[in-house]
């Protein structure tokens, strides 16, 4: 269970909500409403007042690097620090299945990052975010640079994560994708009013 309790992200009213394992919460709102800021605060990448509990442990009780191994933020534009993709994964990680799952060839791992397309990098970023099996995935527009076919594969991988018992928070501008993946929605109004949780059907 991920419980967010009066989390005061800079410039936003405090938000509270819960997400259970096997659940995907979509985070919606206009640009600038604070969707990315909220995900970053949950991963403790930005300082914020309030509390975030994962399985009873508040984030401040857990060493920050360990917290981020459990609560993983994945940016819409994954950044790379080495020449090749493989150097961004733990040595010896079994990646082939995941790479194939998002429609890429495992040989891509040994090509220079600079030669990969935006979509290939975004899919590798998704694989990188979930390869070490974090408990919570905070996915910030994970398919924004993908075509329909690649989007379907990426969604399949995300759905598999949800089925496997992970907690997923999804920022997406694609209403159909939210219907396909999420069970509840958190709406950030972006006008100073408090965020509300709704069911996906509503």
């Amino acid at each position, binding site marked *: 269970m991920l419980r967010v309790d009066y989390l005061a992200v800079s410039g936003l009213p405090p938000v509270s909500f819960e997400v259970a394992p096997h659940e995907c919460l979509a985070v919606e709102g206009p640009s600038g409403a604070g969707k990315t800021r909220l995900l970053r605060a949950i991963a403790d*990448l930005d300082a914020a007042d309030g509390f975030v509990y994962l399985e009873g442990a508040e984030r401040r009780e857990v060493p920050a690097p360990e917290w981020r191994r459990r609560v993983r933020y994945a940016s819409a534009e994954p950044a790379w620090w080495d020449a090749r993709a493989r150097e961004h994964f733990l040595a010896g990680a079994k990646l082939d299945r995941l790479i194939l799952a998002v429609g890429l060839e495992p040989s891509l791992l040994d090509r220079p990052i600079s030669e990969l397309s935006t979509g290939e990098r975004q899919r590798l970023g998704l694989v990188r975010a979930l390869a070490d099996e974090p408990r919570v995935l905070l996915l910030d527009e994970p398919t924004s640079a993908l075509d329909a076919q690649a989007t379907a594969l990426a969604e399949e991988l995300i759905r598999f994560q949800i089925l496997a018992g992970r907690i997923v928070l999804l920022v997406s501008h694609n209403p159909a994708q939210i219907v396909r993946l999420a069970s509840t929605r958190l709406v950030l109004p972006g006008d100073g009013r408090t965020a509300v949780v709704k069911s996906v059907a509503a």
Partner: protein
Amino acid sequence: MSYIELSGTDLALAALLLIVNGAISIAFRLGLAISFGIAAVRMGVQLAAVGFVLNFIFAQTSPLWTLLIVFVMVLVAGYELVQRQERRFRSWFAYGLGNATLLLVGGLATVYAIVVVVHPSPWYAPRYIVPILGMVLGNTLTSCSLALQTLTEGAVRERAAIEARIALGATRTEAFATVLRRALNTAITPLLNVMSVAGIVSLPGMMTGQILAGANPAEAAKYQIMIMFVLTGASGLGAFAAAFGGVLLLTDARHRLRLDRLAPSPA
């Protein structure tokens, strides 16, 4: 041990070379003549003043005078270190880091060189401390400045990559590994170059000075070797301390990247 004292006429003759430069600048309208004049006068006045001050301080027997000048030198070097940075830390962070690094490394290296290597009597004799500390601070200042410059530039430019590593569970030093390595490389490469060419391309300034002052060149070389070890050691340690201190200031205890601690870019 004897040396030839310079007279006022000797200095005026040497200045003639600058006057020729000034004349060329005026003839070709380079607009440098006035800057040349100001810089030359400044240099002359500064060095003459330092000469008088050192004369006074060398004549004192109290270690307090030595301590006072040590602090003044560290403060001036710390100020200069901050001035050289394009991306500075906000407020007291900047001066705090610079002065702490210089005081720690400069002080340690100087005390080590004096107490362990040269051991004059009394140990606080300003005649040894002031010139050695001056050289140590000047060199450490350069390497610290290069290390911090490369570090802050890298942190700003590679913000996304550093944060990606943090988000994947890296500690702050792991996240900064690439930038840190580059910063230390940039700071230490010139030290290696200076050591490699010492005495081949030109004689180091201190050795030249000792030879002109009548010292035996072999003795002067020994002094220069000792000073090179101390200077390079201090500069390397200074670069390490400044870069690691810089990483600690650019991050917080929760291993977050804190670029907000850098002052806004002047440009």
